[in-house]
C-alpha cells in the first residue's frame, strides 16, 4: 500500500491555483502541453500559466497566433495523436471559432472510432463581463452542455480551480474548463497535493432550508451575497455551486430541492436555454412540480459601458428579490 502524499493548505490567488495544478500535472505527465496566445514568456493573459514556460520550455508551452479555429484544431489533432494539450482561449466568445474542431471532431472521436481513439484536450477559457463589451464578455457555457462527449466545468474558488484542472488533465475526452475574469483577483486556501475534484460533483457552499440556489463560477459569490441579504428577512437559502455543468450532479441538486421545495437558478449567461433551464427541467423530472425561478443576464448584449453592463447582469439584490417572490406561493414568478 502506498501512502498518500500529505495535503498542505496554502493560500493563493485563483491564477496561481490554475498554474499549480497545470505544473503538477505537467511534471507527472510529459504528454501535457499548453497552446495559446501569450501563454509563453508572458505567462498567460491572466498570468494563470506563470512560470510554466520557464520550467517546461517552448516545446511544451507554445505561443500561438490569433487563430482560435487553428488552435483548437491543432489541440484536438494533437490529442487524437496521443498528446494531452491545454488550449487556452483568452475570451470564451472566441471559442465559437473553435467549435467545429471541438464539437464535430473532438467530442465525437471516441464514438466514431468505436473507442479506439480519444481526444483528451482541455479547452481552458475565461468567460464573463468586466468592462470589455459585446464580444469579450459572454458566458456561453450553456451552449456546450448539450454536446454529447463534451464535459464542461467551472470553478468558483481557487481550491476548485486546482482540483477541477487536475481532473481535466487526467480525463480521456475533451473538457471545457471555464473560469471568469472577475475571479482572478480572488485568493483562497488550496489543498495542495489533495484529491482532484471529480466531475459531476456539486458542492453545497451554504446550507439552508427555504430555497435552493444553484449557480456556478463568479455567480456563486453573488448567490452567497444574496443569501446574506435573505437571511436578514428570515429566509434561509441553500447555495449550491454546480462546479460541473456536464455532467450535472443531479443527486445533490434534487436532494436539496426535495428538502427546500423551491429552486432559484442563477447564471451570468442568458436564461433562454440556459444552465438554469436544464437544472429546472431535470429537477421537475425527478420531483414533479416545484416552485422555481431563473435569474440571469437580461436579453441584451453586454455593453462596455459600466452602467449598462451592471444593469444587464444579475446582482445580489436581483437574486434576493427573485427569491422573495418565490417565497410567496401561487404568485406568477417572472424571470426578469
Amino acid at each position, binding site marked *: 500500500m502506498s501512502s498518500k502524499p500529505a495535503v498542505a493548505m496554502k*493560500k493563493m*490567488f*485563483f*491564477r496561481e491555483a490554475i498554474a499549480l495544478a497545470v505544473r503538477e500535472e505537467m511534471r507527472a505527465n510529459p504528454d501535457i502541453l499548453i497552446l495559446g496566445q501569450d501563454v509563453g514568456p508572458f505567462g498567460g493573459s*491572466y*498570468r494563470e500559466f506563470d512560470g510554466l514556460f520557464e520550467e517546461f520550455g517552448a516545446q511544451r508551452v507554445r505561443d500561438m497566433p490569433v487563430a482560435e479555429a487553428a488552435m483548437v484544431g491543432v489541440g484536438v489533432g494533437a490529442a487524437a495523436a496521443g498528446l494531452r494539450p491545454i488550449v487556452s482561449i483568452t475570451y470564451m466568445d472566441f471559442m465559437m471559432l473553435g467549435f467545429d474542431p471541438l464539437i464535430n471532431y473532438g467530442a465525437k472521436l471516441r464514438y466514431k472510432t468505436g473507442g479506439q481513439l480519444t481526444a483528451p484536450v482541455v479547452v481552458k477559457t475565461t468567460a464573463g463581463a468586466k468592462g470589455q463589451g459585446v464580444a469579450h464578455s459572454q458566458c456561453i457555457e450553456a451552449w456546450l452542455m448539450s454536446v454529447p462527449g463534451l464535459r464542461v466545468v467551472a470553478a468558483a474558488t481557487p481550491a476548485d480551480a486546482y482540483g477541477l484542472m487536475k481532473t481535466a488533465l487526467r480525463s480521456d475526452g475533451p473538457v471545457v474548463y471555464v473560469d471568469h475574469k*472577475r475571479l*482572478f*483577483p*480572488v*485568493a483562497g486556501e488550496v489543498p495542495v497535493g489533495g484529491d482532484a475534484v471529480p466531475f459531476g460533483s456539486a458542492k453545497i457552499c451554504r446550507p439552508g432550508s427555504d430555497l435552493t440556489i444553484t449557480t456556478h463560477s463568479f455567480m456563486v459569490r453573488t448567490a452567497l451575497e444574496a443569501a446574506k441579504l435573505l437571511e436578514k428577512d428570515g429566509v434561509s437559502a441553500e447555495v449550491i455551486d454546480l462546479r460541473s455543468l456536464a455532467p450535472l450532479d443531479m443527486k445533490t441538486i434534487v436532494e436539496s430541492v426535495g428538502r427546500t421545495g423551491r429552486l432559484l437558478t442563477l447564471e451570468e449567461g442568458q436564461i433562454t436555454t440556459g444552465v438554469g433551464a436544464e437544472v429546472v427541467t431535470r429537477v421537475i423530472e425527478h420531483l414533479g412540480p416545484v416552485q422555481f425561478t431563473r435569474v440571469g443576464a437580461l436579453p441584451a448584449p453586454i455593453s462596455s459601458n459600466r452602467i449598462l453592463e451592471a444593469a444587464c447582469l444579475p446582482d445580489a439584490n436581483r437574486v434576493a428579490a427573485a427569491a422573495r417572490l418565490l417565497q410567496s406561493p401561487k404568485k406568477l414568478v417572472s424571470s426578469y
Partner: protein
Amino acid sequence: MLYKISVPQVADVEEIRVLEWHREAGEAVEKGDLLVELETHKAIVEVRAGQKGYLRKILAESGNWQAIGLPLAVLSEGENDPVPEDAQALTDLPVDFEIT
C-alpha cells in the same frame, strides 16, 4: 503622532500578499522611501512612506495576506512614541503607491 499604513485601494483587488518589506521595524524613514512591495493577482504595488518618521511595527510580514484597507505597519513621528495594541484605530497615513 502615530499613523497606520494600510493596504491601498487598488481597483478590483480584495486582498494582497506582502511580497517583501524593504525596511525594518525601528528604522527611520524619509518621505518617498520604498517600504514594502505588495502583490496583487496581476501586479506589484510599491508602497512608499507618505512622510518622514519611524517605521515602528510591521503587522503583516512578507508572505502574509492582508485585505484592502487593513493595516500593514505603524509609523510614528517621534522615535519613541508608544505604539498602541490596536493599530486599526490609528489615523491612516496617505501612502504613495505605484503599480508596476
